């Protein structure tokens, strides 16, 4: 239904234009801002294919929602030795990895 190029293509094209055409023409004091803009576009591009649904389903197995999960962790419900400690630890790791795949993929190397 939507026209192509799609969002991912447009963001990638805009980022190339920003870094290759605009940045070299900008005065030095704006380079940092332009690089930040390019970084924001890259994060937004990586967010498009990210699918939190499978992790949300696992979260629903452990707690009502993210707030409930956080509160239960604070209350010690998933302390080492508790029956669902390993399950909670694995979910937290996978959530952090998914979040990193969008925000900071270099951290996953």
């Amino acid at each position: 239904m939507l026209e192509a190029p799609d969002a991912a293509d447009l963001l990638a094209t805009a980022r190339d234009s920003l870094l290759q055409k605009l940045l070299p023409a900008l005065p030095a004091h704006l380079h940092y801002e332009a690089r930040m803009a390019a970084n924001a576009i890259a994060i937004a591009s990586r967010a498009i294919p990210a699918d939190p649904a499978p992790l949300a389903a696992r979260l629903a197995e452990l707690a009502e929602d993210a707030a409930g999960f956080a509160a239960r962790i604070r209350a010690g419900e998933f302390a080492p030795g508790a029956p669902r400690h390993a399950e909670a630890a694995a979910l937290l790791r996978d959530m952090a990895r998914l979040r990193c795949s969008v925000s900071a993929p270099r951290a996953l190397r």
Partner: protein
Amino acid sequence: MDEARRAALNAWLSQAAGTPVEIGAASLLSGGAIQQNWAISVTRGGAAEEWVLRTDNAATLTVSLPRTAEYALLRAAFSADVTVPEPLFCCEDASIIGAPFFVMRRVPGTATAFRLAKLAAALGGDAELVRHAGKEMARIHSIVPPRDDLAFLGAPPADAGVEFVRAMRERLDAAGTPRPVLEWGLFALERHPVPPLAPVLCHNDFRTGNLMVEGHAVTAVLDWEFAAWGDPHADLGWFCAPCWRFGNLALEAGGLGPRAALLEGYGPAADPSRLPFWELAASIRWAVIAADQGARHLSGQERGLELALTAHIIPELELDILRQVEDLDARSA
């Protein structure tokens, strides 16, 4: 800086110095998110001097200290032989340039973290620089309560570790965004407490990027606005936390050098067994600060790319936190 402000500033500085002060060149240095730093060239009684004027940005983090308090800290540090720019004059009157400010002597060197990390990496680590940083930190920690000149810091916490966990939970609750990984980290700190020590002055942002460096020497410890009474290992842990290594993960002391050299420079009061607690605390604290900065953007209070992108640092900190919790559990297993 417009003409009216410059004239008002000249008049105020001349009165404070007791001799005519005339500002020549003034340029905005790359400042932090919270404050502005101006490099100013002046003549005092006819002699040329290089100063820095430090003042607040419009939007100030509520958790940071006002300029006047930072000036008092700088004076205390200067008297304790910490390598800091010599504090000169402090003005609490907001009408002179629009906000309170202070001036200090300008020191040579660079504080740019990635540049320093690159130089240190090329050497395979700069043990001399890191030893020097450890010495500076120990001098800061020689300042202990009670101090009338630092009364604005309030009473020291009875147990800095317990207080840290309480304060972070309070900030998470106030922010309202559930952060399960940060809760995981805080719960681990609660499970592995460190016994309290006598409180000392902690800088609380002693890291690569806030140290002015020339060659292998620290020429100034900068940015005192987060200082508070606490556990000296909070500063050691903050300096060594993975998030402040600027790409040099193996150079555990600030991405600049080996941890052993930092501890050696610090001296025998450093207890390495307390560092895993405080390094985990450092990752959590930076994540909480980053979340608050992102929230300033999201709330519309102060929209901008830098604040928006700071929130995206959190996921990487979460990976650090999960690893650090595993390490802490493994150590005590």
